[in-house]
């Protein structure tokens, strides 16, 4: 399977099953329209292709291009066969738990309009995790991680800084236990920044490999949806703190992370605003919400959202060329040493490798399932999880999702988010199609940007 498109003045051809990405000239780009799979190379270009292209290209160009297509096929870089279906059919992952999302606070000092966590309550009342539950979660992951050495703990909420003393206690315990059990703990924290101060920044910088700072863009965009209990916006409080912590981390190993909604479909300006504030690591993502909400993105927004990704791509490349580039999370793609095929088949690991833990110690497949008791998998105090739910998630992969079969993006998104699939289609194997539309567009932009960078070197 191939996918071809034009962006940034380049003709781009992706070979889905090998992962190869090519930039081709017009004759080859047009010729590929005439070739059907399975491709059977011939000693010279077939007549019907010559006939179709003869008005636009010379006979020599046509023959050369055809020969080069044959050479790419022979090198396993074009029209490559699908060799992964067998791996997926015989899928027996035997996964171990390697990452926990610890909901240290089901409470929040903001009341963000679109919060999937029900403004911090997760549909279950406001509560804080105790150090005792947190330590049991650490014991749980150590005991269930097998020989896996790298273990991730993400402090999440609600707002985790509302329970920061417990965050510190859990972190120190994990470091101590990590040494005893030969585990390398990596910590991250996601915060809205309201309570961030110098002491907390110092602790985060000493201990956390990543920090996610929530902000949506301009003051107008941010304060319309990210406000306090009294309705006042958060922008003026958080921006200086976020700038300070980003600088103190040398503009690396953090993200300012926002959400765009139907209120700011023109979100490219918000990403650019974050870059103009000096942030080098940015991520702004589409809201996921039922269509009944007035801020929800729907099919009606797809064209405009895609045009915004194009606009952002142009500005992104311009700034890169001028030596003042920045990173946008969804435009980052590693064409050379990205994840292996196994990772690309299986995705985020929710429900088997990655689990979420509530303040009470209850275990869910991921943070987005928290509160849906149908998916409660156990409690950290029991030390084990529901094998049926685990197996259901473990078996899910790109090849169990019918809608992914003909999609060129499938090895870049791994079939999408299980929680979104369940929330919209009541089946983790039926992807949320609006997210697919955005994902495909972002991938095209990301690969075009990478092509531009490589060719301009």
């Amino acid at each position: 399977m191939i996918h071809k498109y034009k962006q940034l003045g380049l003709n781009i051809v992706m070979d889905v099953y090998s992962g190869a990405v090519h930039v081709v000239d017009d004759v080859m780009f047009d010729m590929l329209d005439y070739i059907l799979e399975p491709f059977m190379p011939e000693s010279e270009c077939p007549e019907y292709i010559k006939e179709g292209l003869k008005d636009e290209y010379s006979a020599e160009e046509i023959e050369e291009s055809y020969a080069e297509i044959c050479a790419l096929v022979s090198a396993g870089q074009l029209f490559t066969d699908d060799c992964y279906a067998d791996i997926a059919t015989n899928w027996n992952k035997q996964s171990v738990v390697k990452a926990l999302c610890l909901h240290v606070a089901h409470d929040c000092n903001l009341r963000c309009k679109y919060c999937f966590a029900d403004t911090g309550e997760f549909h279950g009342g406001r509560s804080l995790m105790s150090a005792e539950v947190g330590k049991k979660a650490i014991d749980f992951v150590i005991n269930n991680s097998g020989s896996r050495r790298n273990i991730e703990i993400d402090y999440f909420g609600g707002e985790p800084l509302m329970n920061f003393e417990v965050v510190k206690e859990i972190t120190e315990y994990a470091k101590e236990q990590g040494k005893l059990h030969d585990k390398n703990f990596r910590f991250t924290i996601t915060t809205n920044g309201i309570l961030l101060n110098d002491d907390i920044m110092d602790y985060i910088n000493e201990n956390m490999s990543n920090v996610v700072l929530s902000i949506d863009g301009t003051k107008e965009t941010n304060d319309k949806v990210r406000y306090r209990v009294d309705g006042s916006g958060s922008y003026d409080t958080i921006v200086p703190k976020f700038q300070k912590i980003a600088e103190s981390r040398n503009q690396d190993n953090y993200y300012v992370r926002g959400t765009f909604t139907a209120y700011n479909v023109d979100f490219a300006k918000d990403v650019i605003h974050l870059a103009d504030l000096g942030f080098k690591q940015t991520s702004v993502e589409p809201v996921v919400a039922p269509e009944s909400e007035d801020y929800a993105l729907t099919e009606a927004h797809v064209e405009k959202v895609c045009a915004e990704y194009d606009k952002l791509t142009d500005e992104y490349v311009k700034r890169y060329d001028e030596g003042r580039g920045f990173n946008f999370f969804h435009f980052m793609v590693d064409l050379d040493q990205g994840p292996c095929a196994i990772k690309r088949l299986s995705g985020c690991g929710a429900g088997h490798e990655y689990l979420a833990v509530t303040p009470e110690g209850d275990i869910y497949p991921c943070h987005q399932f928290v509160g849906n008791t149908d998916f409660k998998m156990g409690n950290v105090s029991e030390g084990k999880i529901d094998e049926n739910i685990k197996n259901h998630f473990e078996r899910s992969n790109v090849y169990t999702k019918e809608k992914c079969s003909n999609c060129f993006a499938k090895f870049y998104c791994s079939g999408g988010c299980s929680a979104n699939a369940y929330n919209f289609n009541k089946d983790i194997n039926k992807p949320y199609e609006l997210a697919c539309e955005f994902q495909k567009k972002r991938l095209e932009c990301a690969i075009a940007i990478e092509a531009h960078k490589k060719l301009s070197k």
Partner: protein
Amino acid sequence: MKHVQTLNNANLKNSAKHGGCGECQTSCQSACKTSCTVANQKCEQAN
């Protein structure tokens, strides 16, 4: 080649044989939390 520039080593098939150690970061932990993006992840075995 005159009509094509290939930008990368097409190594996905090889990685199917040798990959799967699982030491890499969980994609949702990095920044997204609402989508699934794996292609920007680093392989722990990469230099």
